[in-house]
């Protein structure tokens, strides 16, 4: 995570007041695992259960998207991002797209 930016998915940062708005900030990433992981996931898919390789892929993608969004917010001079939303989609086989967006604000 980049520095100590406050991240929430509420409209405000509870206990603080918003003093300035900077508008929408977003970060997205599309990631894939190497073919070995895909083959292992394909085999695991036969018996079902958690596909750890893909869970890892998803959480890496989520961290990356949040990081990019935070960097954008910091570049604007914000110290918090409120009302964060995540959106996922599968753009291609074995790849995960994760999009994070929120409102960059300054809180006091």
């Amino acid at each position, binding site marked *: 995570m980049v520095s100590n930016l406050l991240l929430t998915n509420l409209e405000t940062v509870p206990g603080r007041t918003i003093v300035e708005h900077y508008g929408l900030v977003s970060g997205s990433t599309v990631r894939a695992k190497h073919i070995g992981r895909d083959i292992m996931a394909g085999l695991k*898919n036969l018996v079902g259960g958690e*596909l750890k390789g893909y869970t890892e892929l998803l959480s890496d993608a989520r961290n990356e998207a949040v990081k990019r969004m935070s960097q954008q917010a910091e570049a604007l001079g914000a110290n918090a991002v409120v009302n964060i939303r995540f959106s996922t989609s599968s753009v291609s*086989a074995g790849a995960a797209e994760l999009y994070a967006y929120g409102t960059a604000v300054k809180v006091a």
Partner: protein
Amino acid sequence: MFYGSPVILFFGAWWIGSSIEKKHYASIQAREAQTLHIPAVPIRTPEADRTILEARLVTGCVVVSNDYFKKVLAGLRKIFGGRLRSYESLVDRARREAVLRMKESCPEAHAILNLRLETSMISQTQRDRGMGAVEVVAYGTAIRYE
């Protein structure tokens, strides 16, 4: 032997798959009981009369798939239509697991507000047939009161 292998695969997947599902449900129930003190709710406003020490974004994610046996059965079910029970239990497991992981990432929190669940399918084949795996991201704001 060669022609028998899909049959072995079918019943093998059934046996292993159902034992994995049973184990997963047992673990979900045990962990849900442990994390009962952190309510995760879609309410947006924190309690007004308590001071808030910390508020931060917490997330949990998981990818779960069904076994081969259930996929074949669901395929047969689609001919007649109706409830696909195997997929119902799949999404149920995935959502509860994602919420649990989110809760476990903030054991010191008093509540998680504005809980959201994001679900999508992972596709592997070209003809837009999913591999029967579902990915769930659960997120919310963890609140710690004084």
